[in-house]
């Protein structure tokens, strides 16, 4: 190798990316060539200085603004999903909203509407992405297993938001096994937090084509006292034309404690069933 060839290999030489024979040849050349040695030393200083250059820590505000941005994207995503899935003829008409009634009633109406829509969204099967790539499908399988792990590790967590996270992982599973279904069902029937129970119901709704899931949902109907969950459950079973739900729905209707909104939903449902 002449000097030019040596100099072209000096970066790899310093990175220790050369085979032993070439590296030895360069080392030998450097012992006798002052010009190449100088070049090597300068390059070495440069590379070391670059490698050791201190990195600056970004200010904490960077993380804060990321959190804010993420939160607003999450909100937008939720809203977008609702608007997208809502059929035009069922769009709420402003003049039908009971403006004179207390605020909570309006809020309840919105939530009930949103629940119905989300159920609709949940029932739609997502288009399967076809991929022949084995590596990719192995990755997907790992992700699925990981989701199960997350689900089981968080479903008994202290924090309600963690439990919601756990049950929402089930939503993404194409065909969860019975263990997952049981865990969701247990949450739907026994979790002390209404939001967690509702999230669990949404996840279960996706699998309500299974008869066993519908059986448990019918059984759950008589246990639920939370109005939102009652309405979502009634709507779901009605949509599935589940006639075995008629008896528990009648019970809800005869119960004097039942809220008007729930009663309305029950009556609509009985007409269909």
């Amino acid at each position: 190798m002449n000097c030019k060839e040596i100099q072209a290999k000096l970066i790899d030489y310093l990175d220790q990316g050369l085979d032993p024979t070439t590296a030895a040849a360069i080392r030998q050349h450097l012992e006798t060539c002052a010009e190449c040695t100088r070049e090597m030393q300068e390059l070495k200083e440069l590379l070391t200085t670059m490698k050791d250059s201190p990195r600056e820590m970004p200010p904490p505000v960077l993380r804060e603004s990321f959190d804010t941005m993420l939160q607003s994207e999450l909100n937008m995503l939720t809203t977008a999903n609702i608007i997208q899935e809502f059929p035009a003829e069922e769009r709420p008409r402003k003049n039908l909203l009971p403006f004179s009634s207390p605020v909570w009633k309006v809020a309840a109406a919105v939530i009930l509407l949103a629940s119905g829509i989300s159920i609709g969204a949940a029932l739609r099967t997502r288009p399967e992405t076809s991929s022949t790539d084995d590596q990719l499908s192995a990755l997907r399988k790992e992700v699925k297993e990981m989701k199960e792990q997350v689900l089981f590790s968080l479903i008994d967590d202290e924090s309600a938001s963690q439990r919601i996270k756990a049950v929402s992982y089930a939503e993404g599973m194409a065909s969860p096994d019975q263990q997952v279904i049981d865990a969701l069902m247990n949450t739907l029937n026994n979790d002390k937090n209404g939001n967690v129970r509702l999230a669990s119901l949404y996840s279960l709704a996706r699998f309500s084509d299974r008869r066993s899931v519908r059986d448990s949902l019918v059984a759950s109907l008589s246990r639920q006292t939370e109005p939102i969950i009652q309405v979502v459950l009634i709507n779901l079973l009605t949509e599935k034309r589940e006639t075995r739900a008629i008896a528990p729905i009648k019970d809800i209707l005869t119960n004097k404690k039942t809220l008007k909104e729930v009663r309305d939903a029950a009556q609509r449902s009985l007409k269909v069933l």
Partner: protein
Amino acid sequence: MVPELSDEKIMLLVREGHLSELTALFDRYQVSLYNFFLRLTSDRAVSQDLTQNLFYRVIRYRQSYEPAQGSFRSWIYRMARNVHVDFCKQQQKGPGRLADPEEVEQQLADQSTGYTQDQYQRLDLALAGLDPDQREVLVLSRYQGLKYEEIARIRESSVAAIKVQVYRALKQLRTLYFKQI
């Protein structure tokens, strides 16, 4: 316990709509990417903005992520590169013009008069004297420590071409850096 996930798996979750998972990737990459922008722009406020923009794009374009096409790292760096290019277009200064090369040479010449500067600062100045493309390839390769294969993917080029670019950029940098002493 929840297992530690690879970048690729987390990004797949994000792609499927689990947006909050992105926080983990932000924590893993914010320092590197902030410093990537900082080396290219020498401006802290701008680098913060660009890092924020970048993660916004990650959310927006999450569907374009394909693990079969390479690592998450090359994907996000390619996007970071585009964020920087767009920023430069906005500034209408041409891609990444930090300073007038003649000005840099003058500054460097001024420093050779006895004043010993911190070697890192000297290096930064020399780096600023490179043309933007050379600067970028060195930042990716030497400051960010990416492999030639990754840089080739990021810059949509070949490993051989990247090696030549690094070689030329280092040669140029060496001239500028040692001129200062």
